[in-house]
């Protein structure tokens, strides 16, 4: 079983474990080590092929593996990168990485309405948490933000593109979890959902 060290904390994990999962295992093993866990927005454990899009879980791989110790040239998405035996990863111990993550949080929010005071999700919002924990106090973005009219695509998924950070999780939930539910005697709605959520089918 490969051993990986994240911010100096080592763990042995099954083959095929991602860096993010390994970090979460470290955090569960010992609460004091929870700082090694990178934030994640677009990754969702119950979905296949989720993650990779938002880039908030980027980490620095300072040593690739025992076999090939070279560092990886760019930060990698920890939710989509498997650990290798002997890999060394930096999450909070790399100032450049934390700076890059600040950038990611800023990017995720430049077109967000920041209307938390009137939003139902406020207080239990992962995006809000991400921004509190990893972002900056103020935005440097002064241009007009993208806005969209909300679209009713049924009662399973709410589509409000103005607040969307394009994590693709709803697309995957629709496909992998809610697919049959939407399809149930509700064909027109399903087609409409497909149009809006399934870019590859011509949305």
């Amino acid at each position, binding site marked *: 079983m490969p051993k990986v060290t994240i911010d100096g904390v080592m763990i042995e994990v099954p083959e095929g474990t991602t860096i993010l999962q390994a970090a979460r295992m470290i955090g569960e093993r010992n609460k004091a080590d929870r700082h090694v866990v990178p934030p994640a927005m677009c990754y969702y454990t119950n979905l296949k092929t989720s993650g990779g899009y938002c880039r908030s879980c980027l980490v620095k791989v300072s040593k690739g593996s025992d076999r090939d110790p070279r560092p990886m040239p760019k930060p990698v998405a920890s939710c989509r990168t498997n650990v290798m035996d002997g890999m060394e990863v930096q999450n909070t111990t790399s100032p450049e990485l934390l700076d890059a993550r600040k950038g990611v949080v800023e990017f995720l929010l430049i077109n967000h309405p920041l209307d938390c005071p009137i939003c139902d999700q406020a207080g239990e919002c992962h995006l809000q948490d991400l921004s509190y924990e990893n972002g900056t106090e103020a935005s440097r*973005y002064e241009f007009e933000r993208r806005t969209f009219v909300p679209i009713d695509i049924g009662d399973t998924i709410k589509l409000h593109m103005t607040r969307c950070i*394009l994590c693709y999780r709803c697309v995957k939930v629709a496909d992998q979890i809610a697919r049959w539910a939407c399809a149930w005697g509700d064909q027109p709605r399903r087609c409409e959902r497909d149009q809006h959520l399934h870019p590859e089918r011509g949305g």
Partner: protein
Amino acid sequence: MSRKLLFEHIATPGIRGLEGYRANGGYRSVEKALRTMSPEAVLEEVKKSGLRGRGGAGFPTGLKWSFLAKPEGVPRYLVVNADESEPGTFKDRYLMERIPHMLIEGMITSSFAMGAHTSYIYIRGEYFYVARIIEQAIAEARAAGWLGKNILGSGFDHEIHVQVGAGAYICGEETALLESLEGKRGNPRIKPPFPAVMGLYNCPTVVNNVETIAAVVPIVNDGGEEYAKIGIGKSAGTKLISAGGNVKRPGVYEIDLGITCDEFINSDEYCGGVEGRAFKAVVPGGSSVPIIPYELFLKTATGESRLMTYESLADGGFATGTMMGSGGFYAYNDAQCIVRSTWNHARFYSHESCGQCSPCREGTGWMEKILHRLEHGEGRSEDIDLLWDVQRKIEGNTICPLGDAAAWPVASAIRHFRDEFEYHIRFPQKVKDPKHFEKEPFARNPKFATA
């Protein structure tokens, strides 16, 4: 005088048709490979030639082919990248328009080496008329037995299909191309797995540029060693360069890798220098590579003559060098505005970002807006540093290299032409006239010419 391996017969009348092509030695490489060589031997010649990918990244072609997974009972594919959407690049189009059979010949020979029985040409939507030329050439080749079952009685079967894209730049990125070819939206895939293991329809796939595949023809005909004799070190063979911008003689040139940059830009055999004015800056490899001042294009920071090779163009790293890229060469004279051009590039990347990952989707749009404001006389004193920081936070943090490609032109423009950006902030009234530097060329601070 550079050798002509791809363009030897480009001006020969009738070369576009099969008869004319054949009369000038066409399809010899297919005969040679299928009749006298094993697939491994063809691969060996390509490795020996030192050929590197001509699509932009310069990855050794033989090595790429040797990564191709070969599981039992699973088809393999060759996909030719004819998307050619990099601003400034038009070499593949010229080759396909003038001498389409060369691409088809290269595809058959290369597919033989890979054991691929089906190959695809993914061609950009704007090249619909070129697609027709290629389709016609394929039909001719099929009728003459160069495609189909049991080619030349060798037992090797091959078919080529043409797919026309819909005009998205991102579909030139190899995994986005494969998605598009499969009929989906052209979003780049997250790698690994790489196409050599899981490519088109989840099968092992090689994606190569048009020019790369065409170069296989002379390599197999004359041997890899002959090809490797041209050029310097790891930059072997000839390269097509499409030259544009303020040069006297724009066009597509085949050069021996290793000629000096001075010869390329100033000699009458190639670009022929500049008309009337002075050169200011050069982008030697398509819009994604760093722009450098003319002085640094001619000589590296250490004062050596710069050469048209992968290594020499990159000499000095991003501080003082640039890249070979796709060979989309363009030069600016002193009437051009670097801020305007950078804005134009930023607008392109913002429009072409597929939107999958946040730094590229949001960052390219942000850069475009800041640059728009600078160029239109509404810039603020903090804009240059802000722009620098935004590009820095995109670079390296994205799924595919489009993010980097959007960041580099901005970074290099600020690095080398910061004084021009400052001018835009200081003299908003002057830059409100889009022809500002045409009327009054920008007097550069010599400090920026070398550092």
